[in-house]
């Protein structure tokens, strides 16, 4: 959890711009233009956001001038990988808690599972 103070409306706007930029980040030399403030105010906002723990400031050289790439500390969650399991009907089955060996609903005789297995076996044969 990040330790944070409250954001001013302008800091919030700046932070949203930085978050939306994702991994590319936003150059500090561009931030003030996007916010519609002067460059000094833009730099101060970036420094305050970094001090409050919302963003990282990475030093970079742009057109021979030193500036900072501003990156949000909250990042988009990595895509959840389910390719290896999403096609198995059990994965999204609503009855999965009731389905057990020996129960009325069970993986041995489940109609949905049987249909899926037979379709997959046939599909593999055709390849």
């Amino acid at each position: 959890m990040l330790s944070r103070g409250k954001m001013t409306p302008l800091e919030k706007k700046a932070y949203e711009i930085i978050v939306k930029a994702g991994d590319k980040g936003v150059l500090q030399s561009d931030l003030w233009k996007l916010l519609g403030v002067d460059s000094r105010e833009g730099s101060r906002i970036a420094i305050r956001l970094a001090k409050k723990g919302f963003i990282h400031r990475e030093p970079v050289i742009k057109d021979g001038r030193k500036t900072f790439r501003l990156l949000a500390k909250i990042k988009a969650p990595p895509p959840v990988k389910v390719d290896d399991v999403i096609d198995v009907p059990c994965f999204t089955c609503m009855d999965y808690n009731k389905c057990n060996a020996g129960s009325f609903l069970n993986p041995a005789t489940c109609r949905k599972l049987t249909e899926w297995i037979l379709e997959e076996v046939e599909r593999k044969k055709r390849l």
Partner: protein
Amino acid sequence: METKEDPIVRIVRLMLGEVAAKIFEHLYKNTSEIRDDEIAEALDFKLNSVRRNLYLLSEHGLVTYRRVRSKETGWYMYYWKINRESVQSIINARKHMVLKKLKERLAYEENNAFYICPLDGSRYTFDEALENEFKCSRCGAGLVYYDNADIVNYLKERIRKLEKSLKQKSS
């Protein structure tokens, strides 16, 4: 054009219902924290319904919040975001569950001999076929032996792949 739904959203829908899934999806697509009133406005849901479902999602560890007291009103404001680690662990738990089901199915396929109706495709275990005097209980046609080697091989392959994927995650 229909956009493909994220599987985790589908799982949340099955677990907690449509409203919770929509709220979860909204938070999942946004990287920043969002207030409950902003969610209600964006999705056109009632604020109390959004709050109820956010707490429901929170109880399942899918979302977390940060509480800040407003200096103007003195009331608490809640900023919500997805609990990334928890989402991953729910997916992993589901994968383990699927692995268990596939193993149970494999054991059933390996421990039984099967017969099939050549007319309607109904499958019978040896005991069921014997009970029906090797005739289909639906159409009365004579049953023939069914070689399930392809099914066994397919299940083994899927189990192996799933085990490998789960091992990689835990290492």
